[in-house]
């Protein structure tokens, strides 16, 4: 499971960074989305990977990291997802505004050869 997760994070990050460096705004927004997925998975993984473990303790039991899924990274991921969703939406609006004002989808608002 660790290998799959690590590969997943790696592929998402690699693709995200490559797209982020591309000159078209649409590529940039997809790149940022992929990067934020990678980061969310990364945060999730910091709590340790366990199958079938509960994040909520029963009354009277002692939480031990071998049997218990850490709830904090899960809460962090949820917050991070919401925030990245909102900022991506904002970026989308800005992207459309830039497209409308400049007539091009280049990130600098003008084509290189013009």
């Amino acid at each position: 499971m660790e290998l799959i997760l690590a590969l997943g994070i790696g592929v998402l990050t690699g693709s995200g960074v490559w797209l982020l460096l591309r000159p078209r705004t649409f590529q940039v927004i997809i790149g940022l989305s992929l990067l934020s997925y990678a980061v969310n998975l990364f945060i999730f993984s910091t709590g340790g990977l366990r199958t079938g473990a509960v994040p909520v303790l029963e009354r009277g039991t002692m939480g031990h990291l071998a049997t218990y899924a850490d709830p904090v990274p899960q809460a962090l991921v949820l917050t991070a997802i919401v925030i990245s969703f909102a900022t991506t939406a904002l970026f989308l609006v800005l992207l459309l505004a830039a497209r409308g004002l400049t007539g091009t989808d280049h990130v600098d608002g003008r084509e290189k050869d013009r």
Partner: protein
Amino acid sequence: MSGWMDHLTIAPIIIPLLAGALMMLIDERRRTLKAAIGLASALALLVLAILLLLLADGMPAGGGEAAVRVYRLGDWPALFGIVLVLDRLAALMLVLTAILGVAALMFSLARWQNAGAHFHSLFQFQLMGLNGAFLTGDLFNLFVFFEIMLAASYGLALHGSGLARVRVGLHYLVINLAASLLFLIGVSMIYGVAGTLSMADLASRIAVVANEDRALLEAGAAILGIAFLIKAGMWPLGFWLPNTYATVNAASAAIISILSKVGIYAVLRLWLLMFGEGGGASAGFGGVWLLAGGLLTIAFGSVAVLATQNMARLAGASVLVSSGTLLAAVGTGQVAVTGGALFYLTGSVLGIAGFFLLIELVERGRELGADVLAVTREAFGEDEEADEDDQVGVPIPATMAILGSSFIACAILLAGLPPLSGFLAKFAMLGPLLSPGGAGVSATTWALLAAFVLSGLATVVAMTRTGIDVFWASPAVTVPRVRVVELAPVMLLLAMCVALSVQAGPVMRYMEATARSMHAPHGYVGGVLPTPWPSRPQEGDVR
């Protein structure tokens, strides 16, 4: 947790939140009402911040229980709930934010509030994010408040619209989103190693982290630091800063200019907490980088100051210089220097914000007969002119004289010449370094001294050139139509700087007490964590 005094700590977050949310519901055409609510909230924040500053000033500087005011949300015990922590540094930053808030909001009443929708709500959320970032006691809430602050700043940066703002705003947004992702990576790495997000708990655990995990923790802290340094504009991460700040409308630029200081604040707070004297084997980690980065930023900023032809970009470049100065001073890691750096921070926040506001007033006079204005006009984009009636207002006699002397005051402040606070601050930073107890002056100190003096020289040259160009050499200067409500905030900010210079003694004592408590984090840790902590993590037990 009883009595209304205890709840004062959270009020700087609640007040702008409610005011901003309320204004979302009010029709956009009722501008007077919105302006009244916004101004009332900003003034309430100012009063509150000063009250909190006085409370913080009464705390003992050394440490112990009363060194910080801790507000536990929902009264959960430490580490289970969210905490807000008020100490001297947080109180100082709150006051600065509130002063800028009042000034920028007042300035916007003349013109900028009409240039687009929801200006007042965005402005309140900006204040909320800033206050929250200064008050929060754990890393993840720092992230959340950073995002609130940034989201509002995207809106404010785009306020007034126009081609140039959208183009620069796009870059600003992408850079900050990428920085936020780095922030998250850093936070989660630190959590993965230390198992905590509370700053106080983190500070107490750094020393007992197992040696094989230490590299991972330091890497996490370094990535987190990069996210902060992008905000602070350290070379080479600050390439976006002058351009963005120059394009943003003046009222927003004045408040957004404190965002770079939030980056500095976060570095100062976390670095001293995590890698200060209690850092164990990690103590002092990254200090050399801060120092070197700061010096390079000063160099880059000075070149940018000299090279720029446009006043707004000049202001942006001076933000870089002041960021570099602060980072280099913090990087030396000495208590006395940190005190001077905080004094410098206060003066430079006020001075730069005043300069951003002043620029717009001066530029307005040049609009008709301007020669170099092609650049500015492009930078300002398709400026949405407000109604003619709005702009005319009552012309103030001797406008040019007032603007000119304000410009000179800004130049003296930014360049760090006597008699204003910039000089005192640089002196306070260098003084302790130049007179160490018996030992010779180190090469680092000479580098700092050279950087401070040369950056001051560069600023003087650039400001003089611009001043001559604007006030004396322009052939067809029309006296700008400036309203009292626009001039008053500039005068207010500059008057604060003068007051800072006159009252340098008491202010410096406060700053030194702040620096002492920052460099002795056990007071902060002891205030937040319950004592005695039932099961101290043992060596190797920390995940």
